[in-house]
């Protein structure tokens, strides 16, 4: 039994089940991120944890106590909303202390708590202003202040950074991470941004279509995706999924792929166990950073395979250059060093790190 | 234990509060609207005259006579005229109000200097009761003392404007006064709608080379759909309720040329002591209202789910 337990929880609206048997358990101090495209059920799940939506079946427990039917304010949780949900008619200070006031905390204590939080978040100078006069980042801080001041068991964040511009988003991301490290409170954080998920979390639940597709540490999710959805959703640019056939050559399993001009290539798998699938059509999953120019290939890798193919497009991104080529009829992105000299139309050598390759069943889209 | 029970009670109370809060209004409406509608339907099947149902001594004074009030109603040429007038009046009134309201709103939305002064001028007629503005209108439209007289005195000898005295045109003067009263309000609704439209869309359309005319026709006016709907409902119900206006301006005349269902209903129920027929006409009016409102409400409320 963990600190926060979600046991076989489902949610239905009338006859329509939107969330199917979710089981997640989080330890105290964990930073759990629920990530997925919009409509995947992640916000619904968060709202159920908060008590804003009823649980259809199953149980949600915090510190071993069931929360089913408990009023949101009695769960000792705090929530930061996407729109920040700052009360427009109250000053920042009043916004922060409103919850304490509602819980009957005497005024001096409220003031004390407010000034502590304000100095923690460096928003002392904003306390008398109305939310309408704040910038996006300031509002974000106030919204966090409102959550922090309650000193809750669990913090719930509902896409808190999605309304900020790119730069501020990165800054606030770091800040949230720092705060978590400093306070050590359990956090459940909903986002559709996989980078946020990767950078912030101790564990990630990738959701889609009302199902938890995979629950794991960021590294597990990234390197060991359980299915095609997770593989393509996590990572940017997303994982290349190349149709291939497993062939047996010299007793070892290889991936046979088609190149430009009717040529083929065979890449040896690092995992000999794949020989069992010999003759099958599969999806070969390789992250862009595992396809490089030969000089930039990972020295630690024990299985670098090289192939030559025509370049479609090059996209210099400053730190790296993304090179697009077509393999087995699919567009495939390679990540090369910035100074690599490649031009569109030329035939170039691609070094593929087969240690990082994963294989999916094209029918079920599950890992093989 | 007791504390727990109390907390439990409070939670349950919180859960019931919304419905509890809604219930007084609902109760009022069920009695005072739906109860009364049923009452009216019932009366329409009786031969009640001065009072419904009973006299001072508790004696029943009516008989159930089935649909004969409805039969009488549709035999009355008077009622036919009232219905015909309603169709003309409501049609013109709604269309003209909407057109003027939209035009003024679009014009006012062009960063007009003095908008703040013009707007109340357009709106104020809503604030006045027809008990008296009716008289002012009557005078103004009267050929002997009003517009016709003035223009003729100014030298436009051939000018003629005697609609209010003319059986075939009097209904249009009612439309005129009704439009005067509510078109400003419709303007406000459209203005609000216009102000709510995202400016970026307009800029984009201009980039696309849309002329002002096309901009309004293709981009802006279609986005005002909610405003059109609200305006329609408000105007439709005002049209059906129109009563004071007719009484003040023409009293239903010349002859019966401006009789409307509302004045008909009032006249039969209260002046002519034929409450049964009055109730029957009221039922027909309610059915008309329902026929307009129910599809609207259905569409509106369905959409918002």
């Amino acid at each position, binding site marked *: 039994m963990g600190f926060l337990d979600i046991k076989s929880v489902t949610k239905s609206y009338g006859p329509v089940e939107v969330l199917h048997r979710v089981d997640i358990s989080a330890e105290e101090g964990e930073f759990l991120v629920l990530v997925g495209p919009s409509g995947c059920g992640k916000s619904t799940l968060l709202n159920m944890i*908060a008590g804003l939506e009823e649980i259809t079946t199953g149980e949600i427990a915090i510190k071993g106590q069931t929360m089913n039917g408990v*009023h949101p*304010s*009695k769960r000792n949780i*705090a929530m930061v*909303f996407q*729109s920040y*949900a700052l*009360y427009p*008619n*109250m000053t920042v200070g009043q916004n922060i202390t*409103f*919850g304490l006031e*509602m*819980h009957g905390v005497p005024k001096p204590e409220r003031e004390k708590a407010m000034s502590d939080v304000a100095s923690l978040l460096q928003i002392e100078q904003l306390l008398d202003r109305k939310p309408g006069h704040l910038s996006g980042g300031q509002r974000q801080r106030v919204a966090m202040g409102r959550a922090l001041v309650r000193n809750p068991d669990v913090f719930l964040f509902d896409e808190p950074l999605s309304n900020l511009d790119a730069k501020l988003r990165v800054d606030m991301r770091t800040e949230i991470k720092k705060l978590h490290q400093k306070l050590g409170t359990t956090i459940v954080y909903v986002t559709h941004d996989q980078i946020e998920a990767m950078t912030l979390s101790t564990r990630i639940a990738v959701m889609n279509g009302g199902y938890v597709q995979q629950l794991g540490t960021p590294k597990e999710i990234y390197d060991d995706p359980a299915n095609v959805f997770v593989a393509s959703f996590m990572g940017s640019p997303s994982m290349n999924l190349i149709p291939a056939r497993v062939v047996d050559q010299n007793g070892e399993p290889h991936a046979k792929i088609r190149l430009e001009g009717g040529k083929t290539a065979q890449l040896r798998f690092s995992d000999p166990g794949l020989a069992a699938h010999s003759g099958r059509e599969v999806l070969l999953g390789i992250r862009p950073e595992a396809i490089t120019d030969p000089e930039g290939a990972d020295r630690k890798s024990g299985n670098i395979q090289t192939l030559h193919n025509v370049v479609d497009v090059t996209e210099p991104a400053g730190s790296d250059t993304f090179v697009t080529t077509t393999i087995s009829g699919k567009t495939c992105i390679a990540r090369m060093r910035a100074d690599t000299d490649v031009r569109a139309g030329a035939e170039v050598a691609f070094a593929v790190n087969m240690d990082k390759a994963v294989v999916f069943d094209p029918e079920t889209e599950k890992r093989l | 234990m007791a504390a727990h029970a109390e907390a439990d009670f409070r939670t349950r109370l919180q859960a019931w*509060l919304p*419905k509890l*809060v*809604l219930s007084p*209004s609902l109760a*009022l409406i069920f*009695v*005072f*609207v739906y*109860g009364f509608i049923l009452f*009216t339907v019932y009366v329409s099947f009786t031969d009640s005259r001065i009072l419904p149902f009973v006299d001072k001594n508790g004696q029943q004074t009516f008989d159930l006579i089935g649909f004969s009030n409805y039969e009488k109603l549709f035999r009355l040429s008077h009622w036919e005229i009232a219905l015909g007038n309603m169709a003309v009046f409501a049609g013109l009134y709604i269309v003209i109000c909407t057109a003027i309201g939209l035009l*003024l709103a679009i*014009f*006012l939305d062009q960063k007009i200097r003095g908008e*703040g002064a*013009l707007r*109340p*001028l357009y*709106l104020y007629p*809503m*604030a*006045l*009761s027809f*008990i*008296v503005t009716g*008289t002012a209108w009557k*005078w*103004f439209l009267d050929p002997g*003392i009003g517009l016709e007289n003035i223009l003729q005195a100014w030298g436009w000898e051939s000018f003629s404007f005697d609609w209010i005295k003319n059986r075939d045109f009097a209904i249009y003067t009612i439309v005129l006064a009704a439009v*005067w009263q509510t078109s400003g309000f419709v303007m*406000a609704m459209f203005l*609000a709608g216009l*102000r*709510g439209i995202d*400016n970026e869309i*307009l800029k984009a359309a201009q980039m696309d080379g849309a002329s*002002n005319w096309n901009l309004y026709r293709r981009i802006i006016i279609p986005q005002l759909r909610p405003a059109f709907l*609200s305006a329609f409902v408000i105007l439709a119900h005002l049209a*059906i309720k129109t009563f004071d206006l007719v009484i003040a301006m023409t009293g239903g005349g010349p002859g019966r040329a401006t009789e409307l269902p*509302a004045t008909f209903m*009032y006249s039969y129920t209260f002046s002519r002591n034929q409450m049964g027929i009055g109730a029957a006409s009221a039922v027909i009016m309610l059915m008309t209202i329902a026929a307009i409102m129910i599809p609207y*409400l*259905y569409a*509106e*409320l369905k959409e918002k789910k």
Partner: protein
Amino acid sequence: MAAATQDSAVRTGRVTRMLIYLVLLLFALFYMLPLYVMLVNSVKPLDEITGGGMMSLPAQWTLEPWLKAWSTAQIGVQPTGLRPYFWNSISMVVPAVAISTVLGALNGYVLTKWRFRGDTILFGLMLFACFIPFQIVLIPMAAVLGTLGLAGSTAGLVLVHVVYGVGFTTLYFRNYYAVFPTELVRAAQIDGAGFFQIFWRILLPSSGPIAVVSVIWQFTNIWNDFLFGASFASGDGAPMTVALNNLVQSSTGVKEYNVHFAGAILAALPTLLVYIVAGRYFVRGLMAGSVKG
């Protein structure tokens, strides 16, 4: 207001603008006409009016009709003018507007933020109340008021106006609250605020614009109502419109048109004032809610 901050993207040429101003001014004249007739005739002696000069400016200006309408005109058997009835109207309109607005706000709050099964149907049923012609309900209303012992009292009139106004106020507030961010309500719930606390502390302070719309609408309708006022008020407690009607309508007596018009403007002053003072918020209120479908 909005005009100042809003940057209309539509550009118009000079000639077009002139035309626009012309049309707007012509309409302004159109709207002013009856008011002109009333004003002009309220400041001239009666013989000038009956002498035929109903549209012309007064040859002789006088405030006599105004004074007479306000304080000495014959309303019933006593020459009290409209003055005493003014307060009757106020004491009826203020509570009726306040109660119907508060009820409408609460209903709108429940119907948007505490939704439950069947709520839209209930709302539709409430809306239908807006469309009942008052003449239809007069007799059954009299029976109910009589049973409740409220006939001939201000309380009865307030009840009547609340009943037939609550549909409108609910409509206005519901549409307004429908676009009010639900996250704020959720945040407040998590903060531990109860049903009324959320309404009172979170929604109500932001309801200014729509409250203006609701108040203007209700104030105008109730102030101008004649039928209910005449039927359900006692003689002394009759509202302004009933007194005005008694001043203006007389089948077999001398008609002092100048006094009638002065009285009419006096009776309309409060509503005119409401429109002028609150009118600038009116469009904003409509914009914030009621026309957003």
